[in-house]
């Protein structure tokens, strides 16, 4: 096909498009600062992210990074510092989807805000960082990409400079982020010390050698290093015990940013985790060296994370905070994907990837509904949401879709991924995790249903007059909802893509 003439670096096109958009926005900002031309700004970023999305989808369909005769094989750039494979594209798709939704929604949400251009360019920069994380194949690139994603995020969280909540959120996010990245870097240094390499495949090769040989004298060091790396990922994915920033950050940040962080940033965190632990630290070899199977760490993290997240969410009064905790809980679900790697089957990790994609729609949508509520100014607690369905049935129907999908109740996309995770856990023989999953999803059912109850069942405590229908927010929410529903019948391709991608990296 026509594609083959393109040079190899073109495989990075999605990332480059995102970066380009970010720069374009900077240019625009410097040309006429303090511009509040939301249409242009939001439009540009939307177009950029959608373009990136389109390209990524096209690549996936065309078989970039897919081995075999119909594919082009995994494309490695800069001697393997960057790799473009199915998993990379998959997560680029997740990131770009979320970005697109967020920027469209921000069109209304950020109305009348002073720093329009900055906002959008930061979003695009963070997106670039996340997309890069998806492709990063060396601890160096991973770290850089991570920071590229993190630094704008700190700023974005705190962008409502006169809003104490936003600032507090930014502070907490930043401080814990700095701490975690310090730990992360230290972990990198230890791994480097133990192996002498930072490029993932090289590390793996070295470990093979060590395992084959005397086993090296850095077992403990390596183990500690791996653990610290896990810490870094745990921070990005808001997993216990590195989750403490999440509730405040999501609650304090502007709703679209919360959506952005809780969906895209989480996905990015997971992709690097997947990449590092599948490529650099093969279970058996590493196990020999550090004397313990690192999946155990993820088993523990998964159980603890989902439990903490769901239990803390159950009795929240503030909707946004409930969603924040629920997103911690979902991090716990996805962690099963890593915990189950021991079984050597791609099913469980594939399920995790599927979940992140679906989550990109349903969770973003949920946070955007909160954004809509903040736009309406109805308040933040469950009580404030009471009876919204009478004024805004469509948005509330969408909310119900998001909630039930998050709870994993059919007929919505969330059902597949969650139950595939359950299936994967069972396949990997993680009985404990499966049980925890049952308990937690029962509880999650309770609080998700509680929100549905608030908007659909309860009667409003205050009389409100009709609510506006901001185009951007509504568009984003409806699209997200429609996608969440469509993903039930149309789950086949996604499952195939995810499983294929997982199979590639695991092999």
């Amino acid at each position, binding site marked *: 096909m026509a594609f083959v003439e393109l040079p190899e670096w073109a495989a990075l096109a999605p990332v480059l498009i995102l970066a380009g958009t970010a720069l374009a926005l900077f240019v625009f900002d410097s040309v006429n600062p303090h511009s509040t031309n939301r249409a242009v700004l939001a439009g540009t970023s939307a177009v950029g992210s959608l373009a990136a999305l389109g390209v990524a989808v096209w690549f996936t369909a065309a078989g970039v990074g897919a081995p075999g005769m119909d594919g082009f094989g995994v494309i490695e750039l800069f001697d393997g510092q960057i790799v473009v494979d199915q998993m990379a594209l998959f997560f680029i798709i997740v990131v770009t989807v979320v970005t697109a939704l967020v920027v469209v929604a921000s069109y209304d949400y950020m109305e009348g805000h002073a720093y329009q251009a900055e906002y959008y360019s930061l979003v695009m920069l963070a997106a670039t960082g996340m997309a890069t994380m998806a492709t990063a194949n060396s601890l160096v690139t991973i770290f850089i990409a991570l920071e590229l994603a993190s630094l704008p995020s700190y700023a974005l969280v705190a962008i409502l400079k006169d809003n104490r909540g936003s600032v507090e959120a930014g502070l*907490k996010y930043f401080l814990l982020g700095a701490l975690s990245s310090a730990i992360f870097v230290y972990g990198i240094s230890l791994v480097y010390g133990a192996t002498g390499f930072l490029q993932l495949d090289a590390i793996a090769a070295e470990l093979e050698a060590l395992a084959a040989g005397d086993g090296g004298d850095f077992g403990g060091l390596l*183990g*500690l290093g791996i*653990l610290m790396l896990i810490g870094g990922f745990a921070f990005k994915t808001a997993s216990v015990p590195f989750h403490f920033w999440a509730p405040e950050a999501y609650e304090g940040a502007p709703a679209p940013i919360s959506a952005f962080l809780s969906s895209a940033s989480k996905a990015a965190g997971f992709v690097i985790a997947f990449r590092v632990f599948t490529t650099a630290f093969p279970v058996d070899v590493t196990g020999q060296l550090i*004397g313990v199977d690192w999946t155990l760490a993820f088993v523990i993290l998964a159980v603890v994370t989902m439990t903490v997240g769901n239990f803390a*969410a*159950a009795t929240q009064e503030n909707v946004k905070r409930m969603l924040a905790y629920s997103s911690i809980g979902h991090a716990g679900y996805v962690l099963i994907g890593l915990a189950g790697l021991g079984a050597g089957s791609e099913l469980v990790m594939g399920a995790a990837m599927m979940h992140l994609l679906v989550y990109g729609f349903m969770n973003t949508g949920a946070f955007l509904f909160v954004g809509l509520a903040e736009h309406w100014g109805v308040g933040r607690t469950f009580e404030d949401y009471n009876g919204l369905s009478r004024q805004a049935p469509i948005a509330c129907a969408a909310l119900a879709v998001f909630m039930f999908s998050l709870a994993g109740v059919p007929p919505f996309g969330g059902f597949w991924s969650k139950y595939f995770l359950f299936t994967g856990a069972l396949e990997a023989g993680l009985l404990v995790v499966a049980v925890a999953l049952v308990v937690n999803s029962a509880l999650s059912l309770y609080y998700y249903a509680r929100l549905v109850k608030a908007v659909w069942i309860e009667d409003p405590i205050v009389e409100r007059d009709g609510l506006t229908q901001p185009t951007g927010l509504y568009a984003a929410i409806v699209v997200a909802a429609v996608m969440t529903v469509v993903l039930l019948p149309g789950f086949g391709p996604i499952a195939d893509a995810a499983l294929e991608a997982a199979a590639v990296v695991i092999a």
Partner: protein
Amino acid sequence: MEGLFDYAPAIALFPLVAFVVALAFGNSLPKKGAIPGILATGGSLLLSIAMLAAVASGEVYHETLYEWAIGDAVSDTGVDGVEFTFGILIDPLSALMLVIVSLIAFLVHVFSLGYMNAEGETGLPRYYAGLGLFTFSMLAFVYADNLLMAFMFFELVGLCSFLLIGFWFRTRSAPSAAKKAFLVTRFGDYFFLIGVVAIAATFGTLQFAGDDSFVAAAETAIADGTTLFGFAPETWVTITGLLVLGGVVGKSAQFPLHTWLPDAMEGPTTVSALIHAATMVAAGVYLVARMFGYYALSPTALAIIAFVGGFTALFAATMGVVKDDIKQVLAYSTISQYGYMMLGLGVGGYVAGVFHLMNHAFFKALLFLGAGSVIVLMHHEQDMWKMGGLKEKAPVTYWTFLAGALALAGIIPFSGFWSKDEILYDALIVGLEEPIILAAYAMGLVAVFFTGFYTFRMVFLTFHGEPRSEAAEDPHPVGWSIKAPLIVLGVLALVAGVANLAPVAKLAQLDITFLESWLDGEFGAIEGLTYGAYGELLAYETSYIGTESTTVLIAAGVSLLLAFSGAGVAWTLYNVPEPVEHKERLGSIGKTVEDNYYQDEYQVWLAEGLTLPLSRAADRFDQTVVDGVVNGVSTASLFGSDRMKRLQTGIVTNYAALLVTGFIALLLVLGILGGWF
């Protein structure tokens, strides 16, 4: 004649049509649905008589008409596949019963014109619909050719009884009585249903007649000594037989399930006459007669039937003695009379039992209708102490009622005498061999005295002496529609005995026992369903006091003597201008008897004193314990959630600390497992 039987289904279907018509259009019809009822029952009567004639001419009819449900099931005797069907069995017994039922139903319909319509009752369509449905069910039950069909219509007549007892539902007592009637009989039917299921599961068939009948199957099983459900065949037959008997005891108001019948008098008197005297209550006894072959296989069952019958006969008769409500007296006498029939069947007196069933149907219907007309006369007063002196004012009612009374009391030559005497005679000759039967006979005999007594107490209090209320002074006149049925039944009560003058036959060596030969299939019958066939199955020894004829004379003499003495005592006590109560003479016994030996009390206690509190306790248990666990779980998790979120103190330094702690904990776990330190 063949073609005639094709109309057999119509016998039952006519009343069904009447039911539908009355229910649907009753309100817009003249007489509120009485007319269709009368026409339908009349039609049934004619057809039944035609059937009777057909059977007399030697025809019988046994046809499966409809397959209700078919399926594979391996019965305990190895029969593969089972069919539950509806079919018609017309043999001497059922033909006779058809005529009885349709005749009385017809008369009651006619009587109702005078009794219900004339009184301007509301809800008459409901009443006639009920009657129609009842007649349909009863007739269908009568010629059912298998046990399941019999059970179904057995239940349906129970429903009709419920609906008609509760006809005056706006009162408090009627619904209560209706409920009691249905519940008590339902309790019996519970055992009946187990019996049906058991028999079906055992023999794979429920047919009454023919080679594939469960009776035949049971015979062969006993012959081969096949183990049935882990029991010896005789035992199992006894068990199943007794289970079915449960339904009989309930429906025929035998002890201890007799308590519903007196309350059932809450219904209109016509209903009492039709359902609670002549027909539905007879269903139980009829069922025993219908499957007599089965019981004949089990002496134990028969003995129990006989004893229960004898006991009930006496037990109920004593209670009838002290009642003041004319309908109550009749109710207890009904219970008692059915006791006689059970006794008769129990001792193998198949003919005697059926004979009494027929006679009783006539004279008890007569008495109830008579009582009904009395009640009309008395402006709906039922207390006999408020009556008296109606003899002159209502001659027709009086003479017909008297005929019924004489029959009931068993005074020669009225019909009741012949049948009751035959029962007692059969009981005696068996009893001379079997002590337990002798006991039953003794009770039956004593009951004769009480019967005579309460019957004439009733007659004298009602019709003789001086009027004891202004209602009795100038009674409300009654119309032809009331008189006509009384006359018909009165004649029958007088002459029906001719059907089977057994004592005469035995003494004079004449062959005039028509009923016996009728039931013995001399005119035609289905093989195996004859008196003779049953006789062969029966295991009873019989013997006589001296010769047969002496025994006959002794038996007849004794019972007559007792009947007359009972009547005589009543004469002396109550046939006076101003009769007075004599209960106090009985003292504490009288109290007990008046309270029906506290039968109702303990049964009510079982329901309301035991079951209801038990259920309330179960409810409390359910609410607190079972549901408590469920709610407890949710409470616990929400509490846990409340604690869990306290982790998030809001102070970022704590977060750092917790973060590091958590990390170190993880480090320790893995480190120790991996031996890093």
